[in-house]
């Protein structure tokens, strides 16, 4: 029985529960939490290595084989996402050990953080559409509590928006599952794919259900026109919470879109592809323009999440191997870089005495040159400068767009990269180049703050430098996704 698929779920659950039993605050809890995340990262990496070397893996917990029992499946995409989830958990957790999470903690943070990541890993590994819904709920409940923990007015307003939108999304998702089950009589994704390909049903009928999934996942992924909840909630909680939310939650939505639209709703590709392209283009533009209008660093970054989601949807919409590979690699790049930027904005605010508004900041280039360098790496990477990771993934996406003669979307993708650069320059001008405010006193950056940020920055550089093998992996993944026979075989093969 292979442990690789189950460990990413067991480790965070066990850690959270041990924290419930042994006490949820203080140094001991921090050490237990750290061990848990190190274990999760290790489990994710070992899963990735196994999947990369021996192909797609599936298992049925409780010895119920598919399609009767719940299945956990890991293909390249899932395994990579689980590994990166573990890494982000570890990095953000190290960051959270400093300051704000310890000062006003009522004890729930460490345990909830693990529950959140269990939900995320579960969503990546679920091979059953209803199970995917359950993991979404695990993730959402943990995130509701994390968002509302501080009980300040700002956090409460943000939580209400977040909770309402996500509950609507869950409701639509559930209706979609119900309709799909009524049509197909199965919940296992591989089994649904087989049954749909065998059935004579009208493709439009199936796709009408697919549109419910598109709306449900679209809300989670914050695509146009359903993104408005994201910038109005992500700036409210403590920085470590914003960072992990921005790293993972929207990407679970994108992952689910990729999974369902490559595996299940692939009958009328021309229609869904056109729709997704429109959504992708508008998402990029609105996110990019929104970012320029903001003055709070965290809100600028929140709008960037949206515009970057547009790129991922663009890759999916093109439905070519290059496009899918680009979408997946862009997702990985974006998780790393966006988390990094959030962590760095926390360091900036640390030096600015808690200020996130750019007009209150300044002087960091003069007093903290290394911090300025650290900011430039992810900022340029996000905007797509060579040789950083963002250049490479955007290049793939635009290349895929040009190959399919989708001139407009490729043009938009290029233009939005410029918009990104403009708003990054805005942060740079204010926080780094402007004269320091009168009250500014230089102080040291604690190692727990800069270590995770520096690790992620070096990762972004190394992805850009090691583009060749990573691209190869991306192409292999795209092959798995676009020809789902291997996936179906791995899930239902033992029948």
């Amino acid at each position, binding site marked *: *029985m292979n*442990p690789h698929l*189950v460990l990413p779920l*067991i480790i965070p*659950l*066990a850690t*959270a*529960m*041990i*924290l*419930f*039993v042994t006490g*949820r605050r203080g140094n001991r809890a921090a050490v237990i939490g750290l061990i848990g995340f190190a274990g999760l990262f290790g489990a994710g990496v070992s899963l990735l290595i196994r999947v990369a070397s021996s192909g797609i893996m599936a*298992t*049925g*917990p*409780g*010895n119920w084989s598919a399609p009767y029992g719940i299945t956990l499946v890991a293909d390249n995409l899932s395994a990579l996402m689980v590994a990166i989830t573990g890494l982000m958990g570890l990095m953000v957790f190290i960051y959270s050990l400093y300051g704000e999470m310890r000062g006003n903690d009522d004890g729930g943070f460490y345990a909830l953080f693990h529950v959140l990541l269990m939900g995320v890993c579960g969503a990546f590994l679920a091979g059953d559409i209803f199970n995917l819904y359950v993991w979404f709920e695990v993730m959402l409940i943990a995130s509701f509590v994390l968002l509302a923990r501080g009980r300040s007015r700002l956090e409460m307003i943000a939580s209400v928006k977040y909770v309402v939108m996500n509950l609507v999304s869950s409701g639509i998702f559930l209706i979609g599952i119900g309709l799909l089950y009524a049509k197909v009589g199965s919940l296992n994704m591989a089994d649904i794919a087989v049954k749909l390909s065998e059935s004579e049903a009208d493709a439009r009928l199936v796709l009408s259900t697919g549109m419910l999934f598109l709306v449900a996942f679209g809300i989670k992924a914050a695509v146009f026109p359903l993104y408005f909840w994201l910038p109005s909630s992500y700036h409210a909680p403590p920085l470590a919470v914003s960072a992990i939310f921005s790293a993972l939650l929207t990407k679970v939505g994108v992952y689910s879109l990729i999974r369902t639209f490559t595996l299940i709703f692939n009958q009328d590709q021309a229609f869904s592809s056109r729709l997704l392209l429109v959504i992708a283009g508008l998402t990029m533009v609105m996110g990019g323009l929104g970012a320029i209008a903001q003055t709070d660093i965290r809100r600028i970054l929140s709008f960037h999440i949206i515009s970057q989601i547009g790129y991922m949807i663009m890759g999916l919409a093109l439905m070519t191997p290059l496009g899918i590979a680009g979408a997946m690699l862009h997702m990985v790049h974006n998780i790393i870089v966006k988390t990094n930027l959030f962590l760095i904005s926390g360091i900036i605010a640390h030096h600015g005495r808690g200020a996130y508004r750019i007009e209150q900041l300044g002087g960091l280039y003069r007093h903290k040159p290394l911090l300025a360098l650290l900011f430039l790496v992810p900022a340029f990477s996000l905007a797509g400068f060579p040789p950083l990771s963002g250049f490479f993934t955007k290049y793939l996406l635009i290349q895929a767009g040009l190959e399919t003669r989708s001139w407009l979307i490729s043009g938009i993708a290029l233009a939005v990269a410029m918009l990104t650069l403009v708003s990054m320059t805005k942060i740079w001008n204010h926080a780094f180049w402007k004269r320091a405010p009168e009250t500014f006193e230089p102080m040291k950056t604690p190692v727990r703050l800069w270590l995770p940020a520096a690790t992620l920055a070096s990762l972004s550089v190394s992805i850009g430098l090691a583009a060749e093998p990573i691209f190869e992996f991306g192409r292999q993944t795209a092959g798995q996704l676009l020809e789902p026979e291997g996936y179906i075989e791995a899930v239902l093969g033992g029948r």
Partner: protein
Amino acid sequence: MKKPSLLLEMAARRQTPVLLIVSLWVLFRGHNHPGGGFIGGLLAAGGLGFYSLTYGPKATRRYMRIDPIRLIGIGCLTALGAGLMGWLGGLPFLTGIWTDLPLIGKVGTPLLFDIGVYLTVIGAAVSMLHAFEEA
């Protein structure tokens, strides 16, 4: 807190143990009959909630002898352990393992899992109730 009425006080003191015993019975019959860990846990939490409405959260925690939040952790770990047992025996995670015991009959890891659910539900329901009472 205000002294509760004598009737409520007497009822709570006698009814809570009865409900706890009934909840255990529901838990154990749950394998082949209606019942099980979740509903048993809710019944037990109902009894403890009654006690807590009468005597207050502090007295309830004394009565339970354990912090309800800690009980959530213990319950989940018990259920997880039940899942891991089949796994350590070489079967997939969560596979049930059964053995025949003299006098008691067939017992297996699903029962252990149910006990875990029972404890988790008690812990969660009681701590939610306490959060309301103490707010």
